[in-house]
């Protein structure tokens, strides 16, 4: 692990580094026809008889078209994965990225991410990532994530000591990607290989940039210590705390201050319209993600050991088996209620949603950026659930043409001023 640190320094690619702000277009590739109001769970246990492969085929191809449009518009691309769910048909980050590696030309291809503690074979992750990086000529951004609790059951991954397994997989993947004089052997606590020697090696040297997600102080500091890009997803103004904790880990490593803004990424919703009404109508559609995201049956929310026992006990005493709601707050800390039930206005006030006319969206993002201390990567959920292709295309296009160039200028100026 220690030996890798030097290489990782070199590994920060110019493409990820620097003063340029980057924008990434995201959809979970959902199957909204099965978002039944009365379903006990949209995840894990919803039988796949509700998935019509004809509909799925049309949707996959449409979502890929929208990412190809993102590429043309100068946006970058972010892909995720979940399993056994109508909320996200992408069961493999790598499969989607492999298609896009070939079909796009310019976009950075961010997988956020591969749940490496849930995968039985991290070596295979390294191999597939390297292939994607080579085919895309070095456009891969490599995200490794712990994942959400309800991924544990479909993965059958033991939920105890997940982060120990995560870091071992992480170390193995990076060693596999950076070793030029292999094969080497690996006999770890969780993974054993007799001969590691990946072909091809990655296009980016010594390996593609590494990202991860975090919303907790401990894991934020751990990422800061390693210098990986940290993304925080729909945490609203709490993102500032997440970034500040990262800065502590960065400083303690030690790494030279200040922490560059290209280490920080925030994901929110974006819905742009030609009028405010149109933007807000699109916001309503994309916000459907929040209402369905946590519709998951109780037992899948609580894999034993996924959370520290002391934290799980406190949560249980507070809310029983129901699980915690995702609560929003304004910039000044005023409670806004749960994200699942909030209005579009609430999600805007909470820093989850950026919606309206191009001017309004620009102002909202700048305001949020300032309140959280800034970030070099903005990840945008531009499509969710029932939002149709025409709305998605128009919203993405308006963003790319009328919001993005101004934000790029703003970000560059903000950094120069600093």
């Amino acid at each position, binding site marked *: 692990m220690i030996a890798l640190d030097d290489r990782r320094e070199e590994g920060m690619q110019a493409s990820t580094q620097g003063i340029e702000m980057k924008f990434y277009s995201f959809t979970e590739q959902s199957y909204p026809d099965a978002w039944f109001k009365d379903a006990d769970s949209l995840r894990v246990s919803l039988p796949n008889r509700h998935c019509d492969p004809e509909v799925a085929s049309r949707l996959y191809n449409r979502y890929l078209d929208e990412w190809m449009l993102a590429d043309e518009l100068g946006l970058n691309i972010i892909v995720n994965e979940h399993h056994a769910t109508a909320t996200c048909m992408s069961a493999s980050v790598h499969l989607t990225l492999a298609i896009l590696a070939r079909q796009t030309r310019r976009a950075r291809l961010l997988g956020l991410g591969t749940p490496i503690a849930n995968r039985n074979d991290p070596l295979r992750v390294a191999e597939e990532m390297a292939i994607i990086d080579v085919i895309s000529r070095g456009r891969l951004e490599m995200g490794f994530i712990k994942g959400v609790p309800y991924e544990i*059951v479909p993965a*059958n991954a*033991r*939920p*105890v*000591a997940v982060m*120990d397994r995560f870091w071992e997989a992480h170390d193995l993947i990076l060693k596999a990607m950076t070793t030029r004089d292999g094969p080497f052997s690996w006999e770890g606590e969780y993974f054993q290989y007799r001969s590691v020697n990946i072909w091809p090696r990655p296009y980016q040297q010594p390996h593609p940039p590494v990202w991860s997600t975090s919303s907790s102080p401990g894991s934020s500091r751990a990422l800061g210590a390693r210098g990986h890009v940290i993304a925080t997803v729909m945490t609203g103004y709490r993102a500032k705390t997440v970034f500040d904790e990262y800065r502590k880990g960065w400083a303690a490593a030690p790494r030279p201050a200040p922490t560059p803004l290209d280490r920080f990424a925030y994901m929110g919703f974006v819905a742009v319209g030609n009028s405010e009404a149109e933007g807000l109508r699109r916001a309503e559609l994309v916000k459907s993600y929040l209402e369905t995201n946590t519709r998951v*049956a*109780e*037992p*899948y929310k609580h*894999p*034993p*050991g996924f959370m*520290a*026992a*002391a934290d*799980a*006990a*406190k949560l*249980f*005493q*507070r*809310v*029983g*088996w129901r699980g915690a709601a995702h609560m929003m707050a304004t910039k000044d800390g005023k409670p806004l209620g749960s994200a699942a039930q909030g209005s579009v206005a609430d999600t805007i006030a909470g820093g989850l949603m950026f919606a309206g006319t191009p001017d309004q969206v620009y102002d909202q993002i700048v305001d949020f950026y300032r309140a959280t201390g800034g970030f070099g990567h903005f990840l945008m959920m531009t499509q969710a659930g029932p939002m149709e292709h025409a709305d998605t295309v128009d919203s993405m296009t308006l963003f790319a043409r009328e919001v993005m160039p101004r934000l790029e200028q703003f970000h560059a100026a903000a950094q120069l001023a600093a």
Partner: protein
Amino acid sequence: MLDRSNFADNLTDIAGARIELIERGSGRPLLLLHPAIGIKGSDPAIDRLARSFRVLAPSHPGFGRSELPRGMNTVDDLAYFYLDLMDALDLREVVLAGLSFGGWIAAEIAIKSTARVSHLVLADAVGIKLGDREHRDIADIFTTRQDEVDRLAYHDPKVGAVDHTTISDDDALIMFRNREATALFAWSPYMYDPKLAGRLHRIRVPTLLLWGASDRIVSPDYGRAYGARIPGAQFELIEAAGHYPHLERPDLFAQKIVDFVARAQKSGR
């Protein structure tokens, strides 16, 4: 990893681990191995058994207030831990009684060595795989709603219901340590060792299988099949009890063990 316990008091250093150990009564030692839900000093079966035995009821490493030594993560490890514990305490002629998950540990101990064990009691024990690959024998507590788990586990589900609004901080922490430790040892294969069924024939001490008649976590038929693999094992049902007869019928549970040991003594075993 499992958090190192905050409960520094009353832990006993034994066989390489710091564990919580309830000890009560005198006479022949009875090592009581608890189920995945843990054990409390207030569980009435302990006092009932302590009228006839010197009861030793440890919390397994990682469970209750017991610490988890680094590297311990299989039921095999737990079985060796208890073999070491019996050596360390120089226990002889032990009645080894395991409940549910504790029954699995007891069976794993007994296939290794019964040098210090005179009698084996398996109550609603898990640990073996009987059904085909498309049917599980043991209800999956980790993908089942808690109220449904209680319904399957108890003759009277009210016995097991936990009210999150009134549970004490300590009990809540222990409950989640127990869940985590259970997943550490029994996540997959779920609640069984593929090798165990084929090794049960090695058990040569008098063995009693006790089963709650209303157990729907693991059925009485599973218990009968378990017993059929252990030479000379007896099987007895406990009516009006589910997966935890020591909680629902503590008197009867204790009496059946006392009678079994007396019977086996009389017949010279």
